[in-house]
């Protein structure tokens, strides 16, 4: 049975955009990431980007998947930033990466939680990439469907009938599903 860790409040702060707790989060947890990235070919801005994107990923996982933090935030957050930075370095073509680490021991619980978030992030990125391969009409209807309050509003905005809007929405999501399923990457991402 997964038990909520007391550091789960940082996850809640992300969801609620609680500046007070987030300021504490920055003070407590980001200097370590900053140091790690500085020592591993990164600039101040690189580190800040990685920190922000990691927090945004955690935010989405919390909103979409009701992420429950069962381990301390410290190592969890550091490892996510670290993985993201190593991915960045690989993208930039750095083959050799120095591994200067401040984390000495990682529990299974922490490792699992990190895996979970990284997997979530990969899926999210894959869906976002494939979305751009959809036709513009489909992109438009999907955007409208998820930002406007009702399908009636979507129909009105796009000047189509309600019935057609609904049909088109499911077809477009279906098309995207097909695109995503056809990638090699999708097979590697196990379903949760």
């Amino acid at each position, binding site marked *: 049975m997964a038990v909520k860790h007391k550091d789960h409040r940082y996850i809640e702060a*992300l969801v609620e*955009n*609680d*500046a*007070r707790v*987030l*300021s*504490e989060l*920055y*003070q*407590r947890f980001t200097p370590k990431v900053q140091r790690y990235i500085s020592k591993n070919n990164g600039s*101040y801005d690189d580190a*800040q980007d990685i*920190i*922000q994107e990691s*927090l*945004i990923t955690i*935010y*989405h996982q919390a*909103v*979409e998947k009701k992420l429950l933090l069962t381990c301390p935030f410290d190592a969890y957050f550091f490892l996510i930033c670290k993985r993201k930075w190593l991915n960045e370095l690989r993208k930039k073509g750095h083959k050799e990466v120095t591994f200067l680490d401040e984390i000495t021991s990682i529990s299974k619980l922490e490792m699992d939680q990190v895996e979970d978030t990284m997997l979530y992030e990969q*899926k*999210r990125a894959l*869906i*976002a990439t494939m*979305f751009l391969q959809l036709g513009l009409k489909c992109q438009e209807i*999907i*955007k409208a469907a*998820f*930002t406007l309050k009702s399908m009636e509003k979507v129909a009105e905005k796009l000047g189509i009938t309600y019935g057609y809007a*609904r*049909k088109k*929405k*499911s*077809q477009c*999501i*279906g098309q*995207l*599903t097909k695109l*995503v*399923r056809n990638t090699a990457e*999708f097979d590697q991402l196990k*379903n949760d």
Partner: protein
Amino acid sequence: MKEEIYSLFEAYLQGELQGEELESFEKKLEKDTEFKANFMAYTEVEQSLKSSMGHASEEQALRATLNSFRNKENETEKGSVFKLKSYVWMAVAASVLLLFSVYIYKATDTPSYTEYALHQPLETGTRGTLDSNAKAAEKAFNSKDYTTAVKELSVLLAKDRGNVEWQLYYGISLIEIDKIATAVTILGPISSGNSVYKYTAQWYTALGYLKSGKLEWCKGVLEEMPLEAAEFEKAQELLRKL
């Protein structure tokens, strides 16, 4: 035909299938693995789109908050005010220490917190628009009912997180009710920022340490009070007594 399946998925997700239709859908989910895999993937994609597009404005707001910390770091990084950085660090370290250390108050001849804790009244009325929480916070703070003040100010901050004046008074109220570790984490960013409350926040951080008996921390903060601060003389006086 193939496309019809997505309309069916959608209808199921919206809870629109009933009776026989629903039964046969669920039976198919159980028995047909390809149908199930397709449905699971569809759901996954649908949820992901809903999360990223449906929360786009919330994400923007969160990014704005996160950016505000980033710029703060940048200012201290770029400027010559190296001491500010070490000061923030000290505040963090101290707040952690305060959380775990046993509270020991030495009743010696050291100056007392109450001697120096003379607060400017909170005057939200000058801002024009008055909501009931602002009024209540003002009333509570000015009549020294700090527990209520903390409650009302946290409501106000939930509505307007960037309001530095409220942050400051929230910090002061927290010191008054002995939540000093929390107070220090609130006052820290104000004193490393650029608002008019910068030095006041620094002064109150020192008072927080004074109240909790962390005299060395208190001195450290006071020593960093610059000449141009309105609180400079008070800080020097308190330093002498310490």
